[in-house]
């Protein structure tokens, strides 16, 4: 393949996208979508860098129009989008306007005998599928990792197309982050291994350090009454599936497990090596939470600071 265009938002590192695109294309160009007057650094790894300015509330139609015109004029066979909300919405529109095949959330790309092959998850992550692209062009999204960009590499400006005016923004506000286990990306959950209400502070700081929601086992809600029932994970609480579930001092009875076993990564901290929670854990830390949690806070703090 001759040319791939990697599209990302300004301020987010597109390195992962460029690397993936390089696997299948000989030339990779990077198109940055920037806010008017905002940050505009592009990936230094790309062969060419462009930037286009769009308003904060630009409609996916507008985004699709710009990228489509760009890809068309440059003759790109692959458009690789960062898997972010604005691109998710624009992707199908872009595919239709380019007459391209559409693939979302590809985890890998390869050049097969008959063209491009994308790999992606199927059936809730229980299977991996190879998707053969049967069109000359493809629009694909991929998780670039969400790493902040520190690039200042210059990019050449591209004229945006005239706004379509399809969408009118009525309001926009940042929500105060409130505890919501459902849909949380990270959860720090604790159980009766925590001995007193005062010790909860340790767990809350860990949650804060990880930018995680606070969960707990049932006894914490029903017997100790330290937290409200909206924090309870499990059979009679909330069923969650975050990217990271960190269980501290939770034994892992089945009633708790059914509420969190679909989490992507499960980490358990427990001083009993025979605790059933370890059976479902990706990483088990055998140790006293009163030592492990402060150390972990330190380790995380050191990395952040």
């Amino acid at each position: 393949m001759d040319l791939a265009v990697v599209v990302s938002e300004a301020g987010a590192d597109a390195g992962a996208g460029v690397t993936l695109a390089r696997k299948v294309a000989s030339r990779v160009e990077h198109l940055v979508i920037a806010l008017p007057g905002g940050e505009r650094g592009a990936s230094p790894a790309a062969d060419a860098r462009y930037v286009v300015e769009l308003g904060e509330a630009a409609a996916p139609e507008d985004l699709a129009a710009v990228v489509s015109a760009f890809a068309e004029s440059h003759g790109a066979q692959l458009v690789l989008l960062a898997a972010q909300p604005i691109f998710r919405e624009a992707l199908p529109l872009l595919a239709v306007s380019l007459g391209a095949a559409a693939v979302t959330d590809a985890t890998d790309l390869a050049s097969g005998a008959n063209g491009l092959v994308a790999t992606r998850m199927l059936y809730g992550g229980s299977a991996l599928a190879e998707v053969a692209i049967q069109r000359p062009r493809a629009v694909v999204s991929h998780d670039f990792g969400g790493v902040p960009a520190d690039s200042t590499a210059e990019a050449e400006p591209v004229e945006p197309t005239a706004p379509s005016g399809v969408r009118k923004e009525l309001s926009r506000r940042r929500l105060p982050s409130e505890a919501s286990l459902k849909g949380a990306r990270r959860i720090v959950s604790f159980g009766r291994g925590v001995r007193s209400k005062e010790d909860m502070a340790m767990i809350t700081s860990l949650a804060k350090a990880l930018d995680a929601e606070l969960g707990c086992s049932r006894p914490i809600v029903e017997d100790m009454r330290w937290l409200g029932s909206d924090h309870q994970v499990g059979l009679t609480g909330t069923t969650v599936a975050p990217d990271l579930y960190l269980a501290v001092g939770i034994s892992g009875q089945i009633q708790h497990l059914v509420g969190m076993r679909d989490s992507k990564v499960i980490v358990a901290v427990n001083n009993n090596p025979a605790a059933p929670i370890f059976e479902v854990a990706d990483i088990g830390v055998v140790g006293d939470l009163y030592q492990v949690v402060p150390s972990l806070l330190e380790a995380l703090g050191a990395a952040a600071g």
Partner: protein
Amino acid sequence: MRILVLAKHVPDTTEIRFSPTGELMVRQAPTKVNDYDRHALEEASRLRESGAEVVIASVGPPEAAKTMKEALAYGADRAVLAGGAWVADADPEAMAEVLAAIARRQGPFDLVLAGDVSEDGYNALVPGLLAAKLGTPYVRGATALGVGAASVKVTRLIGDVEEEVEVALPAVISVTRLLNSPRVISTMAVMKVPMSKVETVDLGELGLDPAAFAPGALSTRLSAVRPVQSKRGNEMLRGEPAEIAAELAAKLRGMGVL
């Protein structure tokens, strides 16, 4: 007001597994209405209570007729199920093409509602592709809807930013699970839906060329499916708290979950 709801017949992902010989066992899995689509069905059924006509459209195998009954039980006027041998290979683009034909033939519709994604493929493509094919605005991720006579206001959550946008009708809106809590559909409620409410159509009846739906003519094709190693790592860390904490932090970073 005429509303088209897209509802997909999907296998239950919690029951999908690979046989000891590595084959994907989907057929044995129970099937149902895609969970995300239930929220669209619920919303449409509420709009129907204030006078809207609701038609369900789906692409699926013959067994999907049963699933359509379940979808109808939320409260809809009828369902159109497009099927045929081609369905087994249909990719999102092909499905959107067929759904667009249904929307045109049975339309015009003021509003198309669908779930953001389907549980099986998780492509999140069909509603957007359909909007592009119909040339209507598309908004995804609805957490609240305000349907007016000529426009629809959509509230949605992007990260921790809540925005409200308005687009003109007709429009395609895909919805999240935060939109509403769908009612429970009892077994009896499904049994009570008469099969006559489900109309099955094939490509010819929709004025589509079957040749365009042959596996080789589609935009994508599944060439291989293999199991994901789903067993947990069960990696145990023991030792000095400070050391294992550092090790853990490094591992989590490596896994990309921090």
